[in-house]
């Protein structure tokens, strides 16, 4: 057990919001990456079954973008980083 502090620092609202609210990882269409490669990357990085990875890849291809994962900022940025390492064009959006 610990003693309750006499005084607490209240986090800035924006700072709290940025780190705790959910973010979406968006993969955008590009004309170069192979469909088979994109499916493989989505399976590998996010553990999607092949059918779901294929659905997301086709959504990217036909609609220009798809949301492939979501979560707190830190996780979303890590997902984005891994996608960039695999050559996929990915950005973040607040939900």
């Amino acid at each position, binding site marked *: 057990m610990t003693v309750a502090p006499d005084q607490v620092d209240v986090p800035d609202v924006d700072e709290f919001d940025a780190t705790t609210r959910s973010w979406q990882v968006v993969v955008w269409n590009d004309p170069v990456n*192979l469909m088979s490669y994109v499916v*493989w990357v989505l399976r*590998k990085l996010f553990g999607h079954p092949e059918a779901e990875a294929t659905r997301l890849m086709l959504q990217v291809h036909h609609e220009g973008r798809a949301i492939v994962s979501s979560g707190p900022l830190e996780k979303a940025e890590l997902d984005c980083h891994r996608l960039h*390492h695999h050559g996929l064009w990915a950005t973040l959006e607040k939900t």
Partner: protein
Amino acid sequence: MTGPFVVTDAGIQLSVGTDEQGVLRSVPTLLQSGDDAGGRLDYTPHPDDPAADAEYRELVGDDLAHLRREDRESFNDLVAGEPGTPENLEAFMRVIGEVRLVLAGRLGIEDDGWEAEAEMQSDPELALVGWLGYLQDAAVGVLSELF
């Protein structure tokens, strides 16, 4: 007819002719030249928020560059004929993808369907983009079987 990769007890080996091996050996130099015409190797998660972008870049530092250097080492080992692990083949595949992105940027490829109009025979760089795509697809096939 066999594919460009052979899976044995020793590992995964690249199986291409001497000429093709020579081409692949030269491929990483395309990435070292810094000629990323389309900026396709420098994406940011926060394109509309410079402050968040700066914070992100400070956080990841040169991690991406470090990972890419490691990938190229694995790539070079496979091209040299050494048997590799699935992880080595993944790295090989990523390097192939990076080169295709850089070449596509240099060739001004911006829209889907470019393959249908491409004159692969008359443009060596287009032909290279196509052939590297064949290798990458074959690597996906091998890894999918092992996955």
